[in-house]
């Protein structure tokens, strides 16, 4: 994590001014957990009488704080409010607009990206929470292959899109599935794509694209 900033808070929650400048790095490495201070937090506290040994857990925001994201193998440093989602960070701050904002409620899958190899809804991950994770977007997929990746070529070959708005999310969901499911059946493919919706109904082509890419990986057609 980057250097935290401790701006004046509009919050009514009590704050501890002496903590200004305490780094999140120390927290991430567990140094605070070993400081022996943690146990005192179980003692009842009041807003007026802070125990001097209260655990120095840094607070970030609500104003923008330094956020470091590992996106497609590159470290990107940003200043974001803690409320900014990973999807908004990608689209509005990094100009990576492949992941789409559709339902914005962890349902439709149009914002799907990979985080540490697992598919997630970028609309529902806070950017601050994505720090330290390896994030892969559809832009990175194409970049790594110097053009369309195998799964994207299979989308084209199987006519696996219609209006195309859900497609980048579907491509990433398929890529995430493909990596852990060599030899998957059609039923398993459909089950594995349960987190994405397509209003045009291209599921048949999408499933064929995944089956083709799995086939190609084992030296088939």
């Amino acid at each position, binding site marked *: 994590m980057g250097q935290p900033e401790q701006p004046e*808070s*509009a*919050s*009514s*929650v009590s704050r501890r001014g002496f903590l200004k400048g305490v780094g*999140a790095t120390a*927290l*991430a490495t*567990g140094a*605070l*957990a070993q400081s022996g201070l*943690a*146990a*005192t*937090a*179980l*003692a*009842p*506290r009041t807003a007026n009488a802070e125990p001097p040994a*209260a*655990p120095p*857990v*840094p*607070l*970030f*925001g*609500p*104003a923008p*704080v330094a956020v470091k994201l590992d996106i497609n193998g590159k470290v990107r440093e940003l200043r974001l*409010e*803690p*409320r900014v*989602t990973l999807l908004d960070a990608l689209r509005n701050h990094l100009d990576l607009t492949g992941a789409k904002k559709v339902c*914005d*409620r*962890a*349902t439709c*899958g149009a914002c*799907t990206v990979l*985080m540490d190899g*697992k*598919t*997630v*809804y970028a*609309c*529902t*991950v*806070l950017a*601050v*929470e994505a720090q330290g994770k390896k994030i892969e977007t559809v832009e990175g997929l194409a970049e790594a292959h110097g053009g369309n990746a195998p799964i994207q070529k299979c989308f084209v070959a199987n006519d696996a899109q219609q209006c195309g708005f859900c497609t980048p999310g579907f491509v990433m*969901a398929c890529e*995430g*599935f493909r990596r852990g499911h060599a030899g998957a059946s059609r039923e398993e493919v*459909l*089950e*594995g*794509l*349960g*987190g994405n919706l397509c209003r045009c109904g291209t599921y048949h082509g999408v499933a064929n694209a995944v089956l083709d890419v799995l086939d190609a990986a084992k030296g088939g057609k």
Partner: protein
Amino acid sequence: MNAFEYARPATVAEAVGLLSKQEGETAPLAGGTDLLSLMKDFLVEPKRVVSLMGIEPLAEIAVGASELRIGATVTLDALLQAGFLNQWGAKWPALWHAAAGIKSPQLRAMGTVGGELLQRPRCWYFRRGHGLLAQDAKGESLVPRGDHRYHAIFGNAGPAKFVHPSSLAPALIALGAEAELVSPRGVRTVKVEELYRAPQAAGERETTLAADELLTAVVLKKVAPKSATYEVRPRQGLDWPLVAASVALELDGGKVKAARVALGHVAPTPWPVDAAALVGKPLDEAAIGAFAVAALQGATPLAKNAYKVELAQVAIRRAFAAALKGI
């Protein structure tokens, strides 16, 4: 979404110390799959969000000599992949079935056991800002005269008409699991069913947790019976079940030694069903069918959700069949 300050403590004690006693002031964050949506719709507006994802022990499954402890931030994926579910001869299939019923890989990768148990109701009146009790200006419920096809058929005599959305809770209740709670006042352990209550007045929550209390783990006894969960759902893909039934059985020479049954999506809380009538009797199709009918005897469906009575009977029968078959 309103702005908030954010903390990422490394221990449970630190996390609890950052939570306010006042309801709604602060919010613990795990997978975020429900909390972020609630914040975007201004249904919860915490001034401080406390991430639990930096607390490593909370993400662990610990296999003890006599019990299994599942940390609150263990993801649904990690739960499904945990060796204990297979290595011990599928000891808790009811829990596996319930977790596998959450059909989105993204939600399984992000969502946690604790978050799944404490997600807020999906009642569309609540989600559209009419409050948990969905009352109009005169304090009358909008639900009986509105669209309540997914609402409660049990426990709906009071002002709460929503159904609790948890998939894991009925399974954990049938399996006799306990929940571990930590607050500034210390640690307490309750049965999973005791986490929930039907709110009786506006502003009341559907859980028994204090505002500054964290669910840290669920604990299962290692001696596990035959069990299963059966969900009746409107489609194969991602959606909440219409009804679900979880059963756990101990048999002795073909006769029931102990049976525990809980229903999901039928009441404002997960709904345990008294199965004492089965004890000492052989468990054949007739006995299961009679039990399923009796279990729904006290149902009080609204005008448009009586169909759930029959579906719940079907879910009970199929859950028993799956438990006996050992699927």
